[in-house]
Structures are given as structure tokens and as C-alpha cells.
């Protein structure tokens, strides 16, 4: 495709590439998603239209009459990122046939948070993927409804305190585990599904580019800490995206045409299991888990460790079966 740039993604390359997500937005200090958006846009390969679900990143980047977007950008509602992508895709196809769109190809990226993906936007996402629209859906997962003041989502992990799952005297934060959204998307039998974190930025950018190159739907799940919602130090946001991989809370991997493959950072953990960090190293320092470090809530940490190990084990099995 003529629009495909060679992907080197060295620090120099991405520093030289003009930003499409511009400074001046109103995101908080240490915002994981804002970092993710800026970097993701560095991996675009040509004309691109972005559509976004309602959420922090939509709100901070589009306060009228200002905008952080140097590419065409559309927001309609909270649950509609994938449906918007369907409409843009359909319009581009027919307008191209009629000679009303000049570009040989236009990429479509739909951004949504965990609310707009796991929960309210899930039906639209599932439908758009089933219909096979050509777009990359990027989930920036900060594990809660942070825009409305830190409420639980289907992506919030067990034990995390949110404003709708507060740590109380009888309830230790959220009672349910995180929904396995990536597996659910894999079950849609799409060509490309992957997970990434901004600490491993090169890996993340390559996955964005791979997702864009797929002709049809692709799904990328990016881990993006929210220091306000996680009650964590803003300067530690990116570090948490390393710890999450090293503790296997958030392994990074690709599923290409149904075949699972661990990406290098997680592959290293699989090869040297003794280096796998205990979950407590990841949990500590995050205020949302502070209440777990008490004798009466130790069982929650134990359950989180067991659950993390179980999902990691299942993932490794899928990787083995794919080999």
C-alpha cells in the first residue's frame, strides 16, 4: 500500500515525526492514556481519521474552541466508538468508489477507555468487528471510569477500591475479577489482537502499525495507568506498566489469526519464571489497593495472586498450542 511507511520506530524516528496528538490538552500529570495516545499517533502510516468514545481522553483533547487533534477526529457518544468507525468506513468505501475521496487509503482508529470497551461500548464493538469494518480499535485501559470520578468498570481488578466499590468494613473493594476482554475479542476470530504497555513503547508502536495494516478489524488492548484513579504517584505511571508485565498481571502478547505469541517482555518472564515478580510488588504504592495490606484482607491478595497465576498459565498453554 502506497501509504505504508517503513516502520523503524527508533527513538529518533518518533521524535522527528510530527505529533498528531498535540500538547495543550488538559490531561493530569502522569496520565497514562495521554502518553499512550501521543505515542500511538506516532505509529500511523498516512491519512488517518480518529474517532473516540466519550471519556477522559475525549474531554481533555477537544474543549471547544481548542483541539489537540491534528488529524480529522469525531466523537459522538460514550458507547459508539466502534459504530462511528463503521460509519466512517462505509462512507470512505462508497465515496472512494464514486471518486469523491482522493486518498488511496485512509486508516481509521477508534479509541475508547475500559468503560467504552468492556461495558457500555461492548455491543457496538462486537457488532462492528463481526461486520468486518476496516479499523483499529484501541482500548486504553485505566481500569475504571476515571472521567466520572473513579467508578468500577468491567475492567477494574478484584480488590481495587473505586467510588462505587469503596474499601469498607465488610467489602474489600471490588468483589469480581477483571473481564478477559482480550480473549473475548480473540473469540471474534479477528485477524489481529494484541496487548501492549507504554513502558515497552517500541513493542506498542509496532503493534499499532500491525493493527493498521490489517485489512479488516484489529484490536489493541493498551494498559494505561491513571494516577488519580489508582491513587498512585504520577511519576510512577509508566513504571507500573513495566511491573504489570513482570508480575504477569498484564502480559503482553499478540494473537495473529488465532495464534498466540508472547511478546518479548512477557516471553522473558516465561523463559525465566523465577524472575516473575510477586503481585504485591505491583500492588504496593497504589492507593486503590492499600486496604489489602491488612491481615483481614490478606485473602484478597492471595486470590489475586492465584488468579493472576491461573490466567498466566492459561495464556502460556494457548501459546504452546499455537506453536
Amino acid at each position, binding site marked *: 500500500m502506497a501509504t505504508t511507511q517503513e516502520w523503524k520506530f527508533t527513538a529518533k524516528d518518533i521524535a522527528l515525526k510530527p505529533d498528531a496528538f498535540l500538547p495543550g490538552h488538559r490531561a493530569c500529570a502522569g496520565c497514562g492514556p495521554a502518553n499512550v495516545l501521543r505515542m500511538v499517533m506516532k505509529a500511523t502510516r498516512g491519512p*488517518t481519521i480518529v474517532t473516540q468514545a466519550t471519556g477522559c481522553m475525549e474531554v481533555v483533547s477537544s474543549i471547544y474552541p481548542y483541539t489537540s487533534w491534528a488529524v*480529522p*477526529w469525531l466523537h459522538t457518544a460514550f458507547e459508539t466508538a466502534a459504530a462511528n468507525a463503521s*460509519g466512517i468506513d462505509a462512507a470512505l468505501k462508497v465515496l472512494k468508489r464514486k471518486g469523491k475521496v482522493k486518498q488511496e487509503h485512509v486508516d481509521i482508529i477508534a479509541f475508547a477507555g475500559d468503560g467504552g470497551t468492556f461495558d457500555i461500548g461492548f455491543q*457496538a464493538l462486537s457488532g462492528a468487528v463481526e461486520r468486518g469494518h476496516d479499523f483499529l480499535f484501541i482500548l486504553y485501559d485505566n481500569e475504571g471510569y476515571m472521567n466520572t470520578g473513579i467508578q468500577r468498570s468491567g475492567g477494574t481488578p478484584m480488590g481495587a477500591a473505586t467510588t462505587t466499590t469503596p474499601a469498607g468494613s465488610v467489602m474489600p473493594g471490588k468483589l469480581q475479577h477483571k473481564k478477559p476482554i482480550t480473549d473475548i475479542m480473540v473469540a471474534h476470530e479477528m485477524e489481529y489482537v494484541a496487548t501492549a504497555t507504554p513502558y515497552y513503547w517500541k513493542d506498542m508502536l509496532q503493534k499499532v502499525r500491525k493493527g493498521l495494516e490489517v485489512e479488516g478489524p484489529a484490536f489493541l488492548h493498551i494498559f494505561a495507568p491513571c494516577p488519580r484513579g489508582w491513587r498512585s504517584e504520577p511519576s510512577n505511571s509508566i513504571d507500573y506498566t513495566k511491573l504489570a508485565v513482570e508480575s504477569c498481571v498484564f502480559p503482553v502478547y499478540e494473537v495473529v489469526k488465532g495464534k498466540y505469541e508472547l511478546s518479548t517482555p512477557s516471553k522473558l518472564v516465561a523463559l525465566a519464571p523465577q524472575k516473575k515478580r510477586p503481585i504485591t510488588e505491583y500492588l504496593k504504592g497504589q492507593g486503590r489497593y492499600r486496604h489489602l495490606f491488612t491481615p483481614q484482607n490478606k485473602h484478597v491478595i492471595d486470590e489475586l495472586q492465584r488468579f493472576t497465576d491461573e490466567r498466566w498459565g492459561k495464556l502460556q498453554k494457548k501459546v504452546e498450542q499455537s506453536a
Partner: protein
Amino acid sequence: MKKVYVKQELMALNGDEAVAFAVKQADVDVVAAYPITPQTIIVEKYSEYVANGEVQTEFVCTESEHSAMAACIASSATGARTFTASASAGLALMHEMLFVASGSRTPIVMAVANRALSSPLNINGDQSDSMAERDSGWIQIYVENAQETYDTILQAFRIAEQCEVLLPVIVGLDGFIVSHTLENVDVLSDDAVKNFVGERILPDVLTHEGKKVPFKLDPDNPMTMGPIALPNYYFEFKRQQEEAMKNALTVIQQVHDEYAKLSGRGYGNALIEPYKLDDAEVAVVCVGSASGTAKTVVDELRAEGVKAGLLRLRTFRPFPAADVQKALENVKAVAVLDKSISFGGNGGAVFLEVRHALYDAKSRPLMVNYIYGLGGRDTGPKDFKKVFSDLHIIAHNKRADKLVNYVGLRE
């Protein structure tokens, strides 16, 4: 001298098929829709056109009406002429997105085959669905029969896409009564429609650098659409929509008149259609297909010497208050018929608007409201005769005892 209109062909179409045929001729780029009775025939028929390569349209059969409307907004924002159809629960599911469509100034055309809302579940016709969306910023035009459905869908694209309007349009056709009834429909040739509807106009907007660019998502001219507007700007956006609605009053008439010259078919002044109203002493106001029955009853009463008349309200949003006032101010007693109910309100949606429009009239008619036909309850000539006979008494007594009434109901 006899006027010469463009050559037309007679087709047997029901209302839904008339919609699909008009949409096909209007060379619509994208149809994103979800099937729901009694609109289903529209998307089924259109799917046939797509399957047989008769249209270039991208047809997106979404997983819900909510997504259908979101896809329509996005498609329209990308510059495509966009159409959808819905009814009842489907329209209600779109509710959130209807406001987004009008606020985003996306000129989508939607056919609503008017149907009752649950609960209890009912698939038959009434106008509760689109009347409940009257404040969503969509233009609303209600038609009487399949012929008018065809004519109005063609006009709707022109109205919606006009730069001084740039608002989405609902064309309401009564579920089953119009949507499923086979009628003779005169259709224009493809070329005549092409000339009349034309290509979609994209208004120019100014960038921050002062450059004029077309209002659409375009990688060459990046634009942020659907932003957040805080209290310092939101209000102005809404005021602009109201201005566009006012402009629509004129544009709806212009487009209608142009079409009438082409086809020989017009419907009143496009906003209202008075029938034997000039010297009427008693009159009925209604919306949609019931006016067909009402006209018959008016004729019968006229033959008996009763000065009966009818006002069909064709355009409900924007509401043609001045026209309604002028048409009714000399009538002694008026009954406004509502095919929807506003629970706890002091009358139905149409009644409230019509009565309000008459408040400043030189002479105010006595006015009463009748709720009729909910959930597809048949409303026949005898019901209209009952209403006219009530009006006769009201006009004679110069007093209406009961403001809100029901016709065709067991009580």
C-alpha cells in the same frame, strides 16, 4: 394553458417500498439501519437493491438502532449522503444519538414508520415514537399516503442538506396504514430525481488559519467534530440549531414548491394542508394518514350543509405557528387529534402546539383535544363524525366542557 410536468411512471408500492425506491433514486451513499416492524420492508427492499447491484450504496446492517444512528452520524460527517429508517422501540433506542445527530449538524434522512411504544408491547401504528422525539432537533414531516411518502423522501434530502438548515429530517409515515398499504404511486425518472436532488452540498467552514474547507472529516483538512463545549460555548451551539430550524420553515416550502412544479404534486404550502377551511365553522386538525379519512367525512358533512373543514399539519418541526394561526383563527370550534399521549400533560403534543399558536390570534376558536388510534386502534369515519358532532355542540353552546377527550375508546 395546461401545465406540462415531467414524465412519470405508475408503480404499485406500499409506503415502505416507496421510501426504499426514493432512497435508491436519490443515490444515497450509506444506509445504516436495524430492522424493526413496521419499517422492515424499507431495509429489506433496499437490501435487494444492494444485492442486485442496483445501487452503489454501502449498506451497514448494524447490531442495534443505537449503533445505526452512530454510524449514520459518522458517515454523514465523512461527507456521505446518509439514510436510515426506524420505528417505535428502535427510535427510542436511538434517542441519545438523535440529539448528537442534530447537534453535529449531520443532514441524515430517516423514515419513521410510526408505531406504538411498549408496554404493553404493540407493533401497530401510532405516533408516540416520533412525537416523543420532538425536542431532539430533527425536522419532522408527516405524510398522508404512499405517494406523499415518495415525494417527501426526495424533498427531505434537499431540505436537510441545505447549508442554512443542515439538520436531520424525520419523515413520519403511519405504521401499517401507510407503510404496508399498496397504492398507486407516480414516480419520477431516475434522471429527473438526480436533477432535483443533486449531489450532497458540503458547506464551507473557516479553519483557525482562516482557510475555507468543506465541513467533513477530511485528512487534507483535519477537523475536530463532536467536541466538548463547556458553559462558555454550549448555549450558542443550541441557539444556532434553533436558527437553522427557523430557516427550515422557508426551505421546506421552497423545496416543496420546486418539486410541485416538476411533478405536479403539492401538499398545501408544505407546512400545512388546509382542506375546505376557508369558510369552515368547525374543523379538525390532524397529522398523518387520518386526514384521508377526515377529508371524506368533511365532504359528507359539506353535502349535508355543515361548514366542516380540516387542517392537516404536515410539518410538525419546525412548528408552523403563524400558518396554523392564520388557518384556524376564524373557525368557531376546533378539535385537535393526537395519535400519541402525553401522560399527565394538559393534552397531546399536537394539541398543545396548535392551541398555543392560537393564543395571540385576533379571535380564538374554542379548542378541544381528542386522543385517538393508540396502538393501531382503527379510527374510521364514524369517529370523525362523532368529533364533528361534538364540535357542532361546542360551537352552538360557545363552550367546551372537556378539554381532553378520547375517541374510539372503551370507557
